[in-house]
């Protein structure tokens, strides 16, 4: 039962670490943005895991409200709903910067850019 109850958190940790690995270790800027996307999704998963209530259903009331009906917690959902769209806008900004770097340096690898900066 512990396995079922905590599995979501473990996957959250795995995604967080995998995303952070891409951001820290990979030298390619687009790859880093993808890693940042995975990192974001890990946080989304953590929040959405919190909203689930055993025996509950999505927080949208159908027709006549049934007394005693349990609903999932809507607050984490609101936070994540907005965060997803903000996330894609920020990712697009990062990609735009990567495009500009490629145009100026001819590469989006960090090692190449360091070398070119050093040479000039």
């Amino acid at each position, binding site marked *: 039962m512990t396995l079922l109850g905590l599995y979501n958190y473990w996957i959250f940790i795995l995604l967080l670490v995998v995303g952070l690995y891409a951001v820290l270790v990979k030298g390619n800027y687009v790859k880093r943005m993808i890693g940042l996307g995975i990192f974001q999704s890990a946080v989304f998963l953590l929040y959405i895991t919190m909203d689930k209530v055993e025996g509950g*259903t*999505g927080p*949208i009331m*159908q027709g006549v409200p049934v007394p005693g009906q349990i609903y999932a917690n809507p607050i984490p959902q609101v936070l994540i709903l907005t965060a997803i769209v903000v996330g894609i806008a920020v990712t697009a900004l990062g990609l735009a910067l990567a495009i500009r770097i490629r145009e100026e*340096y*001819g*590469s*989006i*690898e960090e090692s*190449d850019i360091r*070398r*070119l900066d050093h040479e000039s």
Partner: protein
Amino acid sequence: MLIAAGLAILVAMVMATIRGLKGPTIYDRILAMNMFGTKTVLFVAVVAYLYERPDFLDLALAYALINFIGVLAVLQFFQNREARQAARTAQAVPLSGGEQDGASS
């Protein structure tokens, strides 16, 4: 029976993942992604009935419409790849490490 259908879809998803991991060409990965899209639509539809919330079918509708776009974007990228590569090699850029646009794996 709903559960059985849901499990069948899930197994097919696992199989698509295996195909995506194996490759070997990029096209196989596009195929895996395409299959995943359809499977997700069916999966959401079945789970909506498992949860007895058929009003959530809107989601499956959204997926069914959106799926197409991802695959088309990928294919467009592919079709222009040759033109880009030809242009890059014709006008070789003197900077080292600039030619990241390589052949397919």
